[in-house]
C-alpha cells in the first residue's frame, strides 16, 4: 500500500490518435513549424498531425495523472499478516505479536497459532470469524497477527 514513485514518463512516447489511429509522437516541433502561437508558451494539448484531432495531453494533466494512479494495478503483496487478507478470504494463524495483554486477550478468545480464520469484512473495521466466534479488530491489531504462508 506504500506509494511507489510513479514511473517517469518517457520523454518521447508514441500515442495513437483516437480518431484516425495514426501513431505519432506528441509535441516536437511540428506545431511551431505550422506557426501555432500557443506552442510557443508550452501547449498542453496534443494534436494528430494526420487528421488534426486535438485533445488535452494526459501526461501534462495533474487530474489525469491522479485518475491513472487510482487505476494503477496494485502491486501484489505477499499475504503476511491478517491486515493483508482480503474480505472473504481464509487464513491460518502463525503467531500473534503485539503487547502481552493483547496476546493474552486474543488467545483467551480462541485465536491461537494453527487456528483457521475467515475475514468477514475489512471496513469500517476488520471483522473475522474463528469457528463460532466473531471478533472485530482494528488494523493495528490485524497487523500483529501473522499468517502461515500457503
Amino acid at each position, binding site marked *: 500500500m506504500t506509494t511507489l514513485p510513479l514511473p517517469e514518463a518517457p520523454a518521447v512516447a508514441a500515442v495513437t490518435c483516437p480518431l484516425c489511429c495514426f501513431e505519432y509522437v506528441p509535441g516536437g516541433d511540428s506545431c511551431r513549424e505550422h506557426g501555432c502561437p500557443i506552442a510557443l508558451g508550452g501547449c498542453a494539448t496534443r494534436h494528430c498531425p494526420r487528421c488534426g484531432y486535438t485533445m488535452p495531453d494526459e501526461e501534462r494533466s495533474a487530474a489525469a495523472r491522479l485518475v491513472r494512479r487510482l487505476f494503477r494495478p496494485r502491486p501484489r503483496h505477499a499475504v503476511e499478516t491478517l491486515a493483508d487478507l482480503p474480505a472473504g478470504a481464509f487464513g491460518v494463524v502463525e503467531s500473534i505479536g503485539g503487547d502481552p495483554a493483547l496476546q493474552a486477550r486474543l488467545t483467551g478468545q480462541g485465536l491461537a497459532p494453527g487456528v483457521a480464520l475467515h475475514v468477514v469484512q475489512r471496513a469500517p473495521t476488520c471483522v473475522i470469524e474463528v469457528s463460532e466466534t466473531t471478533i*472485530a479488530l482494528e488494523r493495528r491489531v490485524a497487523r500483529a497477527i501473522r499468517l502461515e504462508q500457503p
Partner: protein
Amino acid sequence: MAEGAMAGTAGRAEAAARTPRRIVLLGNPNVGKSVLFNALTGLRATVSNYPGTTVEVYRGRLNGTGAEVVDSPGLNSLLPLSEDEQVTSDLVRSVRGEEGAVVVQVADAKNLRRALLITLQLGQLEVPTVLVLNMHDEAEARGIRLDLVGLEATLGIPVRTTVATRGLGLEGVTAALAAARPPRNHLPLPEEVAGPALALLTGRDAPPAAPPAFLARYHESLLAHADAIARRHATDGRTRGAHLSRRLGRLAIHPVWGWPILAAVLWALYEFVGVFGAGTLVDLVEEGIFHGYLNPWATALFSHVPWTFARDLVVGEYGLLTMGLSYGLAIVLPIVATFFTAFALLEDSGYLPRLAVMTDRVFRLMGLNGKAVLPMVLGLGCDTMATLTTRILPTRKERVLATLLLALGVPCSAQLGVILAMLAAVPFSAAAIWFAAVAGIMITVGWLAARVLPGERGDFVIELPPMRLPALSNVLSKTAARVEWYLKEALPLFLVGTLVLFVLDRLKLLDAITRAGEPIVTGVLGLPAEASAAFLIGFLRRDFAATRLFDMSRGGGLDVVQLVVAMVTITIFIPCIANVFMIAKERGWKTAGAMAAFIFPLAFAMGGLVRVVMLTLGFGGTP
C-alpha cells in the same frame, strides 16, 4: 447413560451426600448464562455490586432446594486480567475452600473448544464442577454430534445438555449438582508456564499491573488441549447458513448498510424515549397523577396545617412534593424507565458491540476507540453510571477522556427528555444549532485533550455476539435494577435541591443570588434573571435545572434564542453533584476539580457564543 459414566468413579457416595449449598454459574460471554440462571432460580434474583467493584453479581435461590445461586460476569479465562475476571476468579476461589459449594460452567454447545479452556483451568484449581452445554438445539441443527459419555470420562465431571430458553434439561443439571467434582487435571503444560499461571489462578500471586508474556503461551497450550478434547468428543458442524440473525448481524456492521441501520436505531430510540417516554408518559403521570390528584389532595390536606412554613415546605412554590417529587417522579422517572428499557433491549440484542464497530473512527478522532461508545450511550441514561462503565476502557488516558466527554456533553436521559421537549417548541434550525454546539464542543475538546493528555490509545478488539431476540424477563430485570439505582441516586438530590431553593427563598437569599448572577445570566447569556436559580441548582443536578428552565419556557418566559442558549449552557454543565463525586472516586479529586473548573466557565462561554451566533444569524425577535 450419562450417570453410567460417573458410576465407576471413586467417591461417588461421598459426592452424592454432599448436597450443594452454593452454586456459582460461570462461562464465556453470550452462552445463555443469565437465561439459565433465571430458569434455575425463577426470577427472584437480587442484583448487587460485587464488594468494592462495579461488577454486577446476581444472586438467587435454586428452585426446590433453596441453595444460593450466584451468576458471575461472562469471561474467557479465569486469569484475572480485567475487573470482571477478577470477580469471577475470586468467586471460584471462594468455592474452592468451601464445603458444599460447586461451580456450574455454562458453555455454548457449538463452541466446545473455548469452553474447555475454562474447564481445564477449573481442573487446575480443583474446583467441583458440572459442565452444562447450553443451546444444544442449535448445535444439533448445525449437525454437531456430542459424545457426552466420552466427554464425561475424559473430563471426569458430569456433563449435561440444556436448551435454557425453552427450559429443557434443567432437572438434569439440578440432579447432577451432587455429583460435581474437579475436572481431571492431567495437562502436560510447559514448565515455565504452569508454575506462574497456577500462582496467578490460585491468587497466590497478586494480579500483575501489566500481563506478563507467558499468559498468551499458557492460553495457547490450554487451547491446544481443549482442541484435542473437542475434536475427540464433538463432530464438526456444517458451516453456518444465512440465518436471519446472522444476516442482520452482518448488515449491522456493513460499510454501507450499517449506517441506515444505525440511523433507524437512533430514530427508534428517539421515538420510544423522546416521544413516548418524555411526551406521552410524562403527560400521563404529571397531568394525570400529580396535577390531577396528588398535588390538589396534598394542598387540601395541608390547608388545615396552621403553619405556613410547613405548608410551603411540602406544597409551596418550592415544595418537596409539588416541586421535588413532581420533578423526580413525574418528569424524570418515565424518561429514565423508557431509556433503560431501550438500553437493555440494545444490550441483549447484541447491537451495542456492532455500534462500537461503526463508530470506531469517530471516537479515534477523540483519542478513544469504538468501545467508548458503550459508556457514551449509557451516559444518555445516567452519566454517573456511565462514568463507572469507563472502566471497560483499557488505558488510563481513555478513561479520563471518556469521563471528561461524559461530564461535558452527554445529556442524561432525564435531561435529554426535557431538552427534547423544549426543542419541540423551537424551529428545526434552532434545534440543529443546539446539536451542532454540543457535538462541536465535544469533538473539539476531545481532539484537543487527546493531544494534551499523555498516554496511549488501547487496541480496539471486541467480540461480536450473535444478534438475538432479547428475552423480556432479562430486559425487565435489568431495567428494574437500573431504575432503582437511578432513583436512589437522583430522588434524594432532587429533594435536597428543592430544600436548598426553599431555604434560600425563605431567607430572601434567592433574590440576592438572582441579582448576583445577573451579569452572567442576563448580560452574557441574555436570559431572564430568574434563570440564575436554575443554574444555581444545576450545580446539584443539571436535569433539575433543565426541568426548571422547561417550566419557565412553558410559561412562555423564553424566546427561541434564550431557549437554545439555556439548553446549550445546561447541557455542557457537569451532570450532577453525584457525578463529581463519582469522578473523584474513580479518577481522584484533582481530576474532578480540574474538570469542574474547566467545564463550568466553558458552559457559560459556549452559551454566550451561541447567543452571539444566533443573534447574528437573525434568530432574535421571532418568538
